């Protein structure tokens, strides 16, 4: 290669310049992945503070005011800083390799969409050190708690959200443009790997809803600084309007998080079953159906807000329907394994755990869709348990599976299988100890976002905290495994790391060269 990437051997100036100015999809993918991991650890640290305070009843370590900042920042950092950028990173790395493109369609915009993110999170995190503290109104930032009653730092929070939104929209446009224009000859839409499909659909969701979020925070900005009353009842506005706008963004957002995770698992399960994905086209249609439904169910987050009964019934029925395409996906994954030739390497373990725990979260989701029962579940730990089963055991497990699955392709080194499996078991056990008891807590009546609780909730909170610490430790093991693999892993040069792997990414050498598919491959 005439102009390979600068390494440390070229001097640190050249090395830093490489990363700052890079337009290479692999470099940008790497940046996204490391950034999201850093944010994952930061958000995890907030979670550890939360669980440490909740270890026992009473306030021991922090004040309720700071506790609220922690729950808020944990949610914001995990959703916008850890999970979303992690999947954008995977998309950057893998989509060009999977569709046989030399790079992303819009490389300079790719650079921009990454490099504004660290600034957004620097702004967001810096609010913790400001007078009055950081955002303390929950990651859902319901008005008027987030407007009239918010600390002054809310303006920085709004600015940070705007930057994140811009980054997401640019990233999504790039993915759509790449997939539409740069597929290798012969790669028709219905031959694309499912990961690519789920990301295209996700990208459309992002382009559709991030502006809605931007609208919501802009209205907040106007209410706070320019005397409008969008969300202020005293001025003729309506706090419920905020919730409608927010959840019109917020519900598609949860599918934005989970759809690429579906894609990853749909790559991994066939590989370790040594059998093609069952029901490919129904997977694509199910993904599209879930994406469509995500736009028409938002008010199921608001069953207790006092909607007319006709509204409640509609949103209940529509929400229940989501179970159908989601079920199709689960059945397809299991049938892919059926009559396969299964092995259980770390990526497969994480994927199987994903299927089981995500389905469990799906069951509680179905329960939550029943409006009459939701009157009891709403805003309790039952909901917290539900969305951690789909977000953590869903998105994070899938992301972890992706790391182990593609790490050999990225760095040309093989991770230590025993260490990988140990990390899996610690994560799996820790996760369930942390979040299974939260179902019981919620049903017994513990509301979420509580800095302190009555003595009847003490036992399960302690168990949950212990599980959370174990799960937190598992993430440090993941970090260790990745670094140990990059530094000392067993070199692997074969193109096809996994016996059962299919797809164009397994036709290039390991580690993947800096530039791939300069000439489009022929895809049959």
């Amino acid at each position, binding site marked *: 290669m005439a102009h390979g990437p600068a390494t440390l051997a070229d001097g640190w100036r050249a090395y830093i310049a490489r990363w700052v100015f890079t337009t290479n999809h692999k470099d940008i993918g790497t940046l996204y992945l490391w950034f999201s991991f850093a944010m994952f650890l930061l958000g995890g640290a907030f979670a550890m503070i939360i669980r440490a305070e909740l270890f026992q009843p009473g306030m021991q370590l922090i004040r309720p005011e700071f506790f609220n900042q922690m729950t808020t920042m944990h949610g914001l950092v995990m959703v916008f800083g850890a999970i979303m950028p992690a999947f954008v990173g995977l998309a950057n790395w893998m989509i060009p390799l999977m569709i046989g493109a030399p790079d992303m369609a819009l490389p300079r915009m790719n650079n921009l969409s990454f490099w504004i993110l660290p600034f957004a999170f620097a702004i967001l995190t810096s609010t913790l050190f400001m007078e009055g503290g950081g955002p303390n109104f929950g990651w859902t930032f319901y008005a*008027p708690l987030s407007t009239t009653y918010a600390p002054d730092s809310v303006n920085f929070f709004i600015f940070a959200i705007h930057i994140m939104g811009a980054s997401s929209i640019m990233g999504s446009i790039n993915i759509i443009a790449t997939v539409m224009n740069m597929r290798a000859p012969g790669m028709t839409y219905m031959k694309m790997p499912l990961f690519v499909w789920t990301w295209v659909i996700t990208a459309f969701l992002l382009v559709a809803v991030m502006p809605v979020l931007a609208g919501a925070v802009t209205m907040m900005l106007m209410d706070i600084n320019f005397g409008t009353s969008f969300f202020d009842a005293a001025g003729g506005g309506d706090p419920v309007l905020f919730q409608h706008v927010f959840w019109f963004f917020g519900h598609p957002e949860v599918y934005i998080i989970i759809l690429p995770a579906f894609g990853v698992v749909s790559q991994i399960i066939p590989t370790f079953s040594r059998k093609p994905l069952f029901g490919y086209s129904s997977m694509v249609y199910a993904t599209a159906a879930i994406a469509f439904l995500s736009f028409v169910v938002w008010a199921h987050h608001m069953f207790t807000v006092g909607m007319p009964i006709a509204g409640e019934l509609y949103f209940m029925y529509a929400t229940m329907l989501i179970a159908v395409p989601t079920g199709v996906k689960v059945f397809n994954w299991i049938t892919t394994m059926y009559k396969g030739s299964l092995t259980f390497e770390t990526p497969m373990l994480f994927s199987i755990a994903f299927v089981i725990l995500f389905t469990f979260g799906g069951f509680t989701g179905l329960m939550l869709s029943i409006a009459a*029962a939701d009157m009891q579940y709403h805003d309790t730990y039952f909901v917290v348990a539900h969305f951690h089963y789909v977000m953590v055991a869903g998105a994070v497990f899938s992301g972890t599976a992706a790391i182990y699955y593609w790490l050999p392709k990225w760095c040309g080194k093989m991770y230590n299988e025993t260490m990988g499996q140990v990390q899996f078991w610690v994560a799996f056990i820790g996760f369930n100890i942390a979040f299974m008891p939260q179902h019981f807590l919620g049903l017994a009546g513990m509301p979420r976002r*509580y*800095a302190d609780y009555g003595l009847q909730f003490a036992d399960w909170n302690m168990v949950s905290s212990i599980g959370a610490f174990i799960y937190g430790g598992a993430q440090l093991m993941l970090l260790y495994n990745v670094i140990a693999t990059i530094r000392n892993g067993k070199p692997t040069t074969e193109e096809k790391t996994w016996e059962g792997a299919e797809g164009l990414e397994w036709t290039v050498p390991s580690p993947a060269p800096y530039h791939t598919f300069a000439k489009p491959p022929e895809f049959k």
Partner: protein
Amino acid sequence: MLKRAQALFLSLLSLVVLLPIAGSAFAESSASQLNMPQGVTEVSQAAYDIHMIMIWVCTVIGVGVFGFMFYVMYAHRKSRGAVAENFHEHLGVELLWTIVPTIILIVMAFPATTALLKVYDTDNPDIEIKITGYQWKWQYEYLGEGVKFMSELRTSDDEVYGREPKGEHYLREVTEALVLPVGKKIRFLVTGNDVIHSWWVPDFGVKRDAVPGLFTAGWAKTDKPGTYVGECTELCGQGHAFMPVVVEVKEEAEYNEWLANKKAEAVEYASTIGKEWAPEELMAKGEEVYLQSCAGCHQADGGGIPGVFPAIKGSPIALGPQIGHIAVLIDGVPGSAMQSFADQLSEVNIAAVIHYQRNAWGNDVGDVTQPIDVLNYKQSK
């Protein structure tokens, strides 16, 4: 080693599947509550019933799906010599597992709808109670009875911060509980004064958001006297965890007696407004009111929290003219967290707390604020 790990994997997974079943069995037998309470109203019973239907439907589907999955993981593993087949679609099963879940959902929609209709059956109440959420307390008003009071957490800060052992009713006790009679249909009209709160009593199956500018209705009717504890379930600021709901359901005669007492209290109170209070009396009462209603934000030493809640100690309002100080409490400060206390505190309490604020922590203004001054300000508006 890997084999053992896989066996462990299987046993743990089955544990995950079985836990909810174990949970529901436990809940019926033991005091350590794992499941939703059945509660004491039709609504809570309806919620519980549909909840249990859903648990069992999900359990049956889960056992079937995961059972098949574990069988596959056992039978079709490469280490047992399984050779992969190559099929990857089958229209029949794909239609089947689209249509069957749809039918299950349609069937489940019927009990779900019936239950929801029950929740919304708020017509023809015997008693109506307006519930207003404040940061961080509840106000109950018996509509048409002239009875209205605030209900605040009674657990002390010392218990919360571990300076004293926690009592049996830690965070489940209030200054004054909502009192209801048995056998009457009660409609709750829930609203918020500042931010959004949510009024929840699990045993009634009533959870209604308290949104400023909006009324939401719920209802309860029970035959079981007792004390029922609930919570605020919408994040409303730093005191979110510290504004429980306590409801006492009494026999009708007891309830009537209680209501008559409350009405008499209100009449008696009216006569104390005109009375001249001694500064020492005001100071003592004022401190009590301050710690209960103001110290949450402005802190016990009047120092506030810089950047969030202003200090009262040395503040121009506390040291300025009395009328301005009264105005802040009666009108609140628009656009800030300082709300109007006109409906929350009595004239006597407002006068006492103003007197306290103007004469404590070195704010030695030296004047005396009487309840009648507060009443005059209110009436001048």
